[in-house]
């Protein structure tokens, strides 16, 4: 049992929870959050893969990949959210 193993399992669990949420949830905002959970879970696994027992240095390449992933994820989230806002406008207009 070590830090890498604990957080590796955490990442897998978070990924599975996010995947399940993205598949069965109906509310758009919650679905976006479920996908965001998936991305954090995937980030966990990459960071764990980069981790070494403390005196050794962690692998910087996966770290750079996760930072790239975080920025791509906020771009995707922003576009998803603007689509949700647009959908809401269209729906509330058709109600009138």
């Amino acid at each position: 049992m070590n830090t890498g193993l604990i957080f590796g399992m955490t990442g897998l669990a978070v990924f599975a929870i996010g995947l399940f949420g993205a598949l069965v949830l109906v509310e758009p905002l919650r679905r976006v959050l479920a996908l965001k959970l998936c991305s954090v879970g995937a980030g966990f696994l990459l960071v764990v893969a980069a981790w070494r027992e403390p005196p050794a240095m962690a692998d910087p390449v996966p770290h750079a990949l996760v930072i790239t992933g975080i920025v791509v994820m906020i771009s995707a989230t922003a576009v998803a959210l603007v689509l949700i806002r647009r959908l809401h406008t269209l729906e509330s207009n058709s109600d009138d």
Partner: protein
Amino acid sequence: MPDPLLVFDALLGLAIVALAVAVLAVRDRFAMIVLFIVFGLMSALAWVRLAAPDVALAEAAIGTGLTGALLLTTLHHVREAPPEQVAEPVAVPMGVPMGVIAVNLGLCAVILAGLSLAFLSTPLQAPGLVAPVVQNMAASGVEHPVTAVLLNFRAYDTLMEVVVLLAAIIAVWMVERGTAQAPAPVLGEIYRGFARLALPAIVVIGAYLLWVGAYAPGGAFQGGAVLAAVGLLLLLSRLYRPRPGHRPVARLGFVLGTATFAAVALLVAGGGRMPFEYPAEHAKTLILLIEGVVTLSIAVTLAALFHGREPEAITVSEKRV
């Protein structure tokens, strides 16, 4: 007696999993976003434990802070509905038959089992790419390995990442043109005195994060995110109001990072060098130039993503004031 730090790790891991469940299960959507922010900060803490402070900073600033702000403005927007609609509970998955949920649960369990098997059978602590990175650090122009990978060894990835951000803001501006003149992006009043005190401090912190990235955790993305917070605070406290005349400046801000990055990458080519192959004696200057410009671009783009709609002739909020 187990190692107290391992006990801490296990508790933190359990808390993260519980928060992930709570985010998706809680009924109130405001609580959902707040729980998500707590979840993101706990994940950042876990990544600090995994010796990844750069990633933790990026997750806390971009993945949690700015994403949370984006989620809250969207919630503010979609909540502007007649009261009887607001009262309607929407948290429970309606319309999805129990059978479908059960099948999906089974599928997710199978995927989780498969991934766990793969994870547990993968040797951790493999050599990885540490050695090549360490060997080439001297030629990279910076002293911090993650910055060297981002801005030098794998600079092409980073350029594409800035392009993705540019594509996102273009998409947001295009789609928002069709959105109704709904509520202004205001989450609540912010005390202007606080803004005046906090803004200079945040600017200094953002610039420091950018500068320190050359030899310690930090860098363009973390610095850019902190500077984007300046933009958010200015927008929320109404110290800055976007006007149609600011559109060209904003567009310049969005493109500047990508354009400078690509121009430097192409201009260093020639004389036997590939694109992105900075000459060793100028590597530090070029990386700092790229980082500085990209930081500004990221800050402007992230703040614009938060504001959403491009500045128009006159907005509803201004009419009301």
